[in-house]
């Protein structure tokens, strides 16, 4: 802003003086110390005093904190390099140069990445296909200013199956999702699990969470199917460390209006809890809790039904039958695109090499 004002008032020298002042400011050791201290204070506050999400929002992803980091990098550039400009370069020095250069490179990588990255979370039930170009497929999206989703994410994903206790070379890898990702030319199919992701055209797919998704079916008195939908259940951890699988929010059980589709008339509020059998998690009991719709609060309505049913067993609710016909898994999958990553990791390793070079050269020199 200041520069612009000066350009208007003319004077080439004035402009140079501003550059000089800027240079002096950026290259001062005092700035280094101030920055170090400010960053330390921010980190300590962000970790010791504030809860993680708050700290992430107000400190670590805030503009001012990132401006501090940019200043730190400029400081390395303007302070370290001029200082060593005319020195004889030996191995000790070469190592330091490599190290500080890599630090700058690292930040270029981080800034570049922040402009073009993409991060999305989708949730799909076994057998389901989603179009990744469509923003409605996502539970959550974050992206850099210059990332174009429609152009870069022309692909679809299928969740074929979720397996528990996935074995790789005899080792138990826990839960794995078998997925396919594809576009017009190519399709890739693989299992993703804790230490394995699938990569397709620069996008990486990571297994995130999972849970049960029973197919709940509504029938009329004659047994004709009126409606059916997979309802993803939350996995809520209870005090005894067991999980409760239930319709609701991530924190607590809740009700959904049923049928859920907006074009159909909503008949009642429904809550379903699922109790998998210990032997086979896909066969179990469901506990229905059905209430009359009188207001926005399900608790206001009269209880229409409360009780459990085995797989495919129909229970009678007023003029209808409810049943759980099938249990599938849902899985949420994180999709990541970080074009700056190669630069970031390369500069980390280069920097690491730089410090080792300096240290080894020092040891040799001493001998």
């Amino acid at each position, binding site marked *: 802003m200041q520069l612009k004002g000066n350009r208007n008032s003319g004077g080439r020298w004035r402009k140079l003086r501003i550059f000089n002042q800027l240079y002096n400011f950026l290259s001062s050791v005092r700035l280094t110390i101030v920055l170090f201290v400010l960053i330390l204070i921010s980190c*300590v506050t962000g970790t010791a005093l504030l809860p993680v999400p708050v700290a992430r929002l107000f400190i670590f992803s805030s503009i001012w904190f990132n401006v501090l980091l940019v200043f730190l990098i400029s400081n390395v550039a303007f302070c370290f390099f001029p200082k060593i400009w005319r020195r004889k370069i030996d191995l000790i020095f070469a190592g330091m140069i490599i190290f500080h250069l890599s630090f700058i490179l690292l930040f270029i990588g981080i800034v570049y990445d922040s402009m073009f990255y993409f991060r999305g979370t989708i949730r799909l039930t076994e057998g389901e296909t989603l179009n990744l170009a469509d923003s409605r497929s996502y539970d959550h999206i974050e992206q850099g200013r210059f990332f174009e989703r429609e152009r870069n994410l022309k692909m679809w994903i299928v969740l074929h199956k979720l397996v528990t206790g996935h074995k790789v070379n005899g080792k138990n890898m826990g839960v794995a999702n078998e997925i396919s990702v594809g576009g017009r030319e190519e399709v890739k199919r693989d299992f993703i699990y804790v230490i394995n992701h699938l990569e397709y055209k620069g996008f990486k797919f*990571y297994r995130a969470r999972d849970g049960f998704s029973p197919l709940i079916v509504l029938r009329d008195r004659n047994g004709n199917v009126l409606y059916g939908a997979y309802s993803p259940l939350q996995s809520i951890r209870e005090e005894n460390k067991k999980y409760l699988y239930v319709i609701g929010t991530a924190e607590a059980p809740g009700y959904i209006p049923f049928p859920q589709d907006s074009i159909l008339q909503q008949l009642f509020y429904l809550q379903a809890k699922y109790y998998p059998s210990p032997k086979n998690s896909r066969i179990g009991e469901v506990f229905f809790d059905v209430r009359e719709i009188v207001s926005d609060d399900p608790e206001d309505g009269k209880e229409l039904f409360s009780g459990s049913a085995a797989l495919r067993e129909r229970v009678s609710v007023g003029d209808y039958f409810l049943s759980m016909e099938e249990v599938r898994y849902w899985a949420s999958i994180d999709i*990541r695109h970080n074009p700056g990553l190669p630069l970031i990791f390369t500069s980390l390793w280069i920097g*690491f090499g730089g410090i080792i070079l300096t240290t080894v050269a020092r040891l040799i020199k001493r001998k």
Partner: protein
Amino acid sequence: MNSEMVFFWTAVAFYGLSAFSYIFGLISMKEKLFSAGLILSFLGLAGNVTAVAFRWIKGGVLPFSDISESITSGVLIAIAIFLIVQASSKRLRAIGALVMPVAFVLIGWAGTLMKEVSGQIAPSLQSYWLWFHIVGASTGFGAVLVAAGTGLVFLLKERYKTGIYEKLPDPDSLDNLNYRFVAGGFIMFGLMLISGALWSNQVHGKYWNWDPVESWSLVCWLIYGMFLHLRITMGWRGRSLAWYSMVAVLVMITSYWGIPFVVQNFHTGFRIEH
């Protein structure tokens, strides 16, 4: 008590006795007590190694997945480094007066937090990056702990000139040693941060999360980076850096084990939910 526990508490006891020998050695200026401290620390290490080995065999995974395991293994490596330093020079015995009490307090605390081996291999621990991460973290800790020890000895040497203090290395060598161990620690923390980032990227697709443990490790690394700059760029030497290294190791210990203890989970990455 199972055999793992017997060895573990034996180690704690030997470390404790060793710490007392070193401290009283300093106070009473008796070199024999240093030798006793050294032998006791060696016995403690033997117990420590055996206890970790038992746990490793029983659980089938590198015992590094909660705070108490991480402290136990971290102390093991630190004492091993300390003993290597002891083997290389007789004149550095007094470092034990800082290293052993810290080791004793930490491992004793670990004992109170100990849980049964879970017997389950957390799949996320099966990444090779984790090895680098752990080696970096624990040797880094060992190095800066020894650096802090040399810092203490430097300060003592400066103040007292007679008796056992006469035999200590001259201040310049101590100062230099302090710098070298800090530099070594700095490198190992660098390895820890990089491999941690790679590991996290492999498991979550995120290389940096600003989780408390990560931020504090970065703080630590910057603090040791500042040490190097103060020495190399600003020309600091001696007493100020000796104090610096002793304070810095406290920050280091807090960030490794204090923070995960307070925030109730040792790195979110270690916790696998289903």
